[in-house]
């Protein structure tokens, strides 16, 4: 099945690690052009060399909202447009899931400002599509009351409403909610070392008996963002190996 990603322009943050990195690799393999940003400039350079093709990179630390918007539109201008925006920057990438201000700034306002800044580009596209990354922790209680869980729930609500508002403009908006995802050097890998009982307890609750991989999430992101999913909008796709127990009607 051809996803129709070839030649599309994708903007993606936090691209040097985990799910975002795998998504970047997959979009590149499908022939998309990429605009990548990350706090880690060295790692961006490494990734750019690994990917080949059209890749614009920007080392970036989110300090203020205007700077973030300007960075995104700058990347879009360098790419000559933007068809797909993946909002994947999060306080969880900086061990900040308990930090309300930081999570609001990165996860919530990062979604709002990103969508608004790129709206003119997405509207011009014939394949305009946004993915907002959320988490299963948004809709089933997980670990502890914390900023990450609550604000990721708000992101789903925001994305659903935005999908209604922007459907007439031809911009699709979908959410992707992974359960626990483990990869070498990732957060859960750290938990295996530092909180092994917690880690083993979580794995024991997953019917598939293992955590997910970034590749598995990346494939869903790529499909959902692509023209192959052209009639899907406002949905929240859960990828969790059966971890959450609620029934989603």
């Amino acid at each position: 099945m051809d996803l129709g990603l070839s030649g599309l322009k994708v903007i993606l943050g936090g691209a040097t690690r985990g799910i975002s990195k795998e998504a970047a690799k997959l979009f590149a393999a499908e022939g998309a052009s990429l605009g990548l940003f990350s706090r880690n400039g060295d790692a961006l350079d490494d990734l750019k060399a690994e990917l080949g093709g059209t890749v614009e990179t920007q080392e970036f630390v989110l300090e203020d909202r205007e700077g973030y918007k300007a960075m995104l539109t700058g990347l879009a201008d360098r790419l000559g447009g933007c068809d797909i925006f993946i909002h994947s920057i999060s306080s969880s990438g900086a061990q900040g899931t308990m930090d309300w201000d930081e999570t609001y700034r990165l996860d919530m306002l990062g979604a709002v400002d990103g969508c608004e800044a790129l709206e003119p580009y997405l509207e011009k596209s014939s394949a305009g599509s946004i993915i907002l990354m959320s988490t299963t922790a948004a809709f089933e209680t997980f670990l502890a009351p914390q900023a990450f869980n609550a604000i990721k729930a708000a992101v789903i609500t925001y994305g659903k409403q935005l999908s209604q508002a922007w459907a007439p403009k031809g911009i699709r908006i979908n959410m992707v909610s992974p359960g626990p995802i483990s990869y070498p050097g990732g957060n859960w890998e750290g938990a295996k070392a530092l909180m092994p009982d917690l880690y083993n307890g979580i794995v024991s609750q997953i019917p598939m008996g293992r955590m997910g991989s970034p590749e598995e999430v990346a494939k869903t992101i790529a499909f959902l963002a692509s023209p192959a999913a052209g009639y899907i909008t406002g949905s929240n796709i859960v990828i969790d190996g059966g971890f959450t127990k609620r029934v989603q009607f």
Partner: protein
Amino acid sequence: MATKARYAEIRFNDRPIKDMRSDPEDFTLEPGEITADFEAKSPYRLDELHPNIADYRAVSVKQFIDPAAKAREEEKLWSKVWLLAGVSSDIPEPGDWFRFDIGPQSIIVVRGKEGEVEAFYNVCKHRGNELVQEDFGKGATSFTCIMHSWRYNLKGKNVRVTDRDTFGPEALCQNLDLTPVHVRDWGGLIFINMAEDPMPFEEYFADLMPMLASYKMDEMYVVKDLSIEVPANWKTMYSVFNENYHAHATHPQIKPYVDDYNVQYDHYRNGHNRHLFPVAVVSPRWPDSRFINMGLAYMMMEAGVKTSGFKGDARHVRRAIQAAKRKPDNAYGMDFTGFTDNQLTDDWNPSLFPNVTLNMHPEGILLQRFRPHPTDPEKGYNDVIVLSAKVGEGRRPPAYMGVEDHVDVSGKTRPARRRTTHEDPQGGEVVEQDIANMVTLQRGMHSRGLNDTIVFSEQERRIQHFLAELDLYLNDKKPNRNQPN
């Protein structure tokens, strides 16, 4: 052991080390802005201290098993070296004393009336009964044998032979005072030496003293005291430590925040050596060396360094924590003056020949001592003593030292010594992982599959050094003065 299963998923997840150093003594840790002479590399190299060091890369297991080797060590090693007997803070007042056992020998260490420390063999000169039978005592004015009430003052002088007139002159003409041994109360630690004419203490420890003194152990106090009987030779136990090579597999949980490879090796005279382990740095074996992982994030939080908006990645965390500790209102409630920047985060791990290893941090010290059993070459004692500095309210010595949460670390109460075994070591996870290795190493040494020989890598140079120095004693080749440089 439970910890083996706990860390099964990451035990062998290592990345290969790029550009491995064949000579680990080539590496020097970069000092911070504040450094000190005692941080510099040792002026000695191991192959200069022991030109025959190649002989210690493959060694026989016999010395770890053989009763004859044990007897030789008692005669030629234990009776000649300075041994850590205890800590000064355990006997603060005149008449306070403790007992120190090493193999079949037992020593009483007591603080005299003028505050000086004396040490004697713990044996009544009458019939050889052990004079004191407890570990510690307070405020004694004399020692009285429980069997026939012979009595000795704090200087060891016999002050009472009960029913003296019933002893003939052949008995009474013997020296009936306690037999003294050399003792030094230095820097918060008390050492004894059973030799008649030992190497002077200051010469024996010359190379280590400035570093040891910098930790101000005389201001620390005991917050944990375990004596763990382990079915292993004391050298097997000691050799489980004193190398960084085992850390990645034995202690996989530390890889997110301890560099177990880029470690400074320093070898000194008289068998001493050290590793300087950078802490708050990701191990190069861990899959991601840039991401601020959960372990680093926890250390940053402890130090009051915010992870959110942190300028930099994992490679900048160690210096950031050092800087946070330098602040007068630091989160530890301590004054770190006198410590180098690297000491503020890193694990400085000296070994005092022959049987002590220390993991040193300004907040606390994990002191481990390995003692031979009185009779069995394949049993010994792993003493685990944690010393705490006076830390701020709510602060604790480093968690890996295994001081339980309910234990008072204010110094108001000195916890009792716990005697336990390898089956329930109570030493915390890191210590327990090492103890598990001691047991299986000792058992394995009997295997016919071993062909009598075990081998050591250059990452295990400290063990080579230890065995080479030990042989100097066993072969009567150890001078009792330092040689001129």
